[in-house]
């Protein structure tokens, strides 16, 4: 008899930051 294998459920939790911050000071003259 074959084995019944249950589908694996994997929970993925992102480890990287969801926010990236940039200051626009110093960008004068770009536009």
């Amino acid at each position, binding site marked *: 008899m074959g084995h019944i294998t249950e589908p694996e459920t994997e929970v993925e939790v992102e480890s990287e930051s969801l926010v990236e*911050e*940039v200051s626009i000071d110093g960008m004068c003259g770009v536009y």
Partner: protein
Amino acid sequence: MTDVTVSSALRLHPRVSIRPEPFGALLYHFGTRQLSFLKSPRLLAVVEAVGDAESVGDALATAGVRDEEFPIYLRALGTLRESEMLVERAA
């Protein structure tokens, strides 16, 4: 970093404008001239919900954030609190 917990009460700073993007959103603070990239549409949903929600935990639940994802979202909100994109609100 400023600690944000599920019982914190936050709202968007009045001088912050949100521009939704395919990757999430751009936040611009007219006071600090700071830009924040929200790299998840769900985080945008949290940020939009947090001002009306009773607590951060309620906003996370409203946006459909799973319990196991709470830490990373709380960390993201802490970053936004630190840069004054979000400010404390009287509960």
